[in-house]
């Protein structure tokens, strides 16, 4: 595809609900990253995939957060029992293997009421 695609662009949910956020990376990019950007802050790392496996999930805040990338392309970030503090913009980025240049999607703005 032309760029990193994230859906939905906006998601409003109620406290306690489950949400899934989708990322479709640039075709051929094997590395995929999830970041979270809270208001007034820079993006913060959540998890990194190289291919299908999560190579580094050290940024996930707690066990309510989980991400998968079953076929090494599209990734889904899953948040269980959402809390108001989860409200943020969730960004996805991808890069070619061996490259440090990450290309970002437009993000999903999650609002937990």
């Amino acid at each position, binding site marked *: 595809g032309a760029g990193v695609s994230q859906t939905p662009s906006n998601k409003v949910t109620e406290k306690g609900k489950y949400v899934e956020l989708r990322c479709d990376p640039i075709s051929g990019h094997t590395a995929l990253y999830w970041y979270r950007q809270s208001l007034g802050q820079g*993006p913060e*790392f959540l998890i990194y995939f190289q291919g299908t496996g999560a190579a580094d999930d*050290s940024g996930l805040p707690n066990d309510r957060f989980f991400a998968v990338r079953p076929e090494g392309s599209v990734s889904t970030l899953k948040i269980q029992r959402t809390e108001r503090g989860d409200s943020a913009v969730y960004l996805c*980025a991808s890069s070619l293997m061996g490259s440090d240049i990450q290309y*970002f999607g*437009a993000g999903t703005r999650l609002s937990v009421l």
Partner: protein
Amino acid sequence: AQSVSQHNHHVILSEAASLELGCNYSYGGTVNLFWYVQYPGQHLQLLLKYFSGDPLVKGIKGFEAEFIKSKFSFNLRKPSVQWSDTAEYFCAVIFYGGATNKLIFGTGTLLAVQP
């Protein structure tokens, strides 16, 4: 802990003024350095990067940045800003030695250029 600091959170300039945005990072090891820009309503875009070589790097739209290793700094500059430069600017660093090439971002600088 690995961290990135941006000194200016909000900058207001008139067109044609010169711009310098500060960025400092912790840690004394090998780093790759980036400036990303986010225009209103758009996604993060790479403005410029430093990996090695000449510490003065030039990016798109007339921006440049200078890596000063002794000061752990990577300041962004532009001699003459335009109204279209209104955006949020993020400094980001990859600190080598960890498990992954994750970007560590500063908190961002919101630049408003008045016509």
